[in-house]
């Protein structure tokens, strides 16, 4: 068993209304110095040892992210 983390973030050139909403709220709450916020998703998967990297990439690409608007990174986390 391994823990795998998949980070899915909106592409840089794509509008990110969620991150935008946070970025706009921060100064109103008195937090300055944060110039940009982007919000994405984080998936944590418990994966059997025989699942290979290609399969994980495939899962990320077809199910967890839509590559048209999102980038993703797959990492095997240290247990």
């Amino acid at each position, binding site marked *: 068993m391994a823990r795998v983390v998949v980070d899915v973030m909106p592409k840089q*050139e*794509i509008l990110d*209304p969620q991150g935008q909403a946070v970025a706009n709220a921060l100064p109103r709450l008195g937090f300055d110095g944060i110039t940009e916020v982007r919000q994405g998703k984080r998936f944590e998967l418990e994966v059997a040892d025989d699942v290979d990297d290609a399969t994980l990439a495939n899962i990320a690409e077809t199910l967890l992210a*839509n590559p*048209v608007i999102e980038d993703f990174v797959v990492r095997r986390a240290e247990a």
Partner: protein
Amino acid sequence: MTDTIDTAGGPGHIDSVDRAKTSPDVDQPFRELGLKDDEYQRIREILGRRPTEAELAMYSVMWSEHCSYKSSKVHLKYFGETTTDEMRAKMLAGIGENAGVVDIGDGWAVTFKLESHNHPSYVEPYQGAATGVGGIVRDIMAMGARPVAVADPLRFGPADAPDTKRVLPGIVAGVGGYGNCLGLPNIGGEVVFDESYAGNPLVNAMCVGVMKTEDLHLAHASGKGNKIILFGARTGLDGIGGVSVLASETFDGDESGGGRKKLPSVQVGDPFAEKVLIECCLDLYHSGLIVGIQDLGGAGLSCATSELAAAGDGGMRVDLDQVPLRAAGMNAAEILSSESQERMCAVVDPSKVDEFMKVCQKWDVTANVIGEVTDGENLEIYWQDELVVDVPPRTVAHHGPVYQRPVERPGEQDLIAADNANTLARPSTPDELRETILTMAASPNLCSRAWVTDQYDRYVRGNTVLAQPSDGGVLRIDEETGRGIAIATDCNARYTRLDPYTGAQLALAEAYRNVATTGATPMAVTNCLNFGSPEDPGVMWQFQQAVRGLADACAELGIPVTGGNVSFYNQTGQQAILPTPVVGVLGTIDDVTRRIPTGIGGEEGETLILLGETREEFGGSEWARVAHDHLGGTPPKVDLAREKLLAEILLAGSRDGMISAAHDLSEGGLAQALVETALVGECGARVVLPEGADPFVQLFSESAGRVLVAVPRSEELRFTDMCTARGLPWAKVGVADAGSNSLDIQDVTEIPLPELREAWEGTLPKLFG
């Protein structure tokens, strides 16, 4: 890509007008942008030089099929030619404006329009559908109206296809996600499954807006010195080239096509930004701060600036450095083509600019003066102090190419017509008929849409009088007087496939009937014409026939087409979708408290009366599809005079309290109408079919021009006398039976309502979770 100019931006690298004059031989990537050789030559002739890169970007998007209507224009003219002065009498704005506007009385005007967002919704279902809703809502706002409702006619591949599982939930969530967040009740639409939409779903979206007649705003930039203000979201790299992609043959290669950076062709919507923009616009209108206004949709600033300038009386000067950007390093062509959502462009008197800005600040909406109206002739656009666009605006906005595409009736139409559906093997025993009723009720095209419509807010703003599952949506407009409107959208593309002329008329007839079934009076028409490739003469024939059919039918019913939209290139490889001219009808109702509900059982003791005539008509029917996967023969006959009479009877009946429920008969015929009216009303019924008639034909034929009505027993005689006197065929087919909790069709079968409900409601949740 061939050799091209250095577009890297930065001073000295800008492809200015001066530079274009001195470098006539630069090789330009016009083909990658979807322009044909002769179209490019025409641009050179108009300008007397080669276009700059920014100009090329503008012309290419504005001359795309989507924006220029180059293949459809010659046919669409027919709508205007068939609209009489009498039909035009209530029209305050029509074809050529962002959306049609009709006067509904008491000083109220209603604007409505349908648009497509098909291809983007296939690539990114959620965002594609969401931005489709966002786009049509801005069209309505641009007329000066408050958007008050949306509807969403949708078409998908087979319900059980894996790709439909990917596409449908995302599209439904996107329509809901955007519309719900805007606070617009969703009061209608369609969900249709057919093999032909696999790989090419249709996402059409309708928006309705309301205003006082004096608040009507038309898009034009007149008055020298007036300021051009861009307000709303910042401009980013979204959907660059999207419009040419939407409508061009390069759909497959869009991500890297056009010699551009690898940029996504889809846009991401921010419904919250749009909600705030709506309130901000209404505030601006009410404060009288606007001379002209235009939404930014397909083709972004290219479209907004050229259309505003073309509709005005002078020229316009725009400074792109004043456009607030979201991305670094954008060049002029990209700023002009960006399809960033949630933006509007206003023309404002200089003395009102400060006040305008104050309203925007209140709503936290970014606004910048980006230019002004000039007394010149041209649209001049500057970027980093260089003149990068200098064009006569009408040549961009209106004088695009016009094609007389070849039109040819395909030979196979005769074969299809000869493949008579009335000869298919039919159920005949009571058991077979019972099974057919249940199978039909559970089939994807007839089953309950609740899985979809439950994801849409139909209550917000508290004026929704009827919505799903009623035939039409009804909205109260004026709380004092009870005045309201009704809308419906329809199209049975199987009929259109069999006979596009008749099919389009049937689509109109059904939408018209659906509006009338709510107790409203149909008034005006919009459409969204979804077809395959215009370069296919067979598709062009379908298109031409559908336009003629629709226009002729509108003339006969006396209600005008006030606007619409064309979507071509809906095909997967060589396989075009079924020709799908979606028709939307708007009606008015002077007192919403007399709207007619769909479910029976509202009154103690109701007689069920079938209005209209039932013939043996199975061509294109849902039964032929479900039972035999068959599409052939001829569609049901249309009788528009009959539809008109039917509408008048429904109106009179509802006015005088003679009708307590009504449901229009369409796909699935009488059987389906009975199932639905009983389940919606949670009331059983006893049905007696006409003696001697074939029960299968009575139950499943799809003859047009029929409505099932429930009449309180005390009104029965008065109502049937009225029908007889006016020459409308009617037949008593049964009674509502609150005690029975079953649908009892005598001599055929009795089915408990819970069993029917399980069949009708189970299908979509099972398929989509």
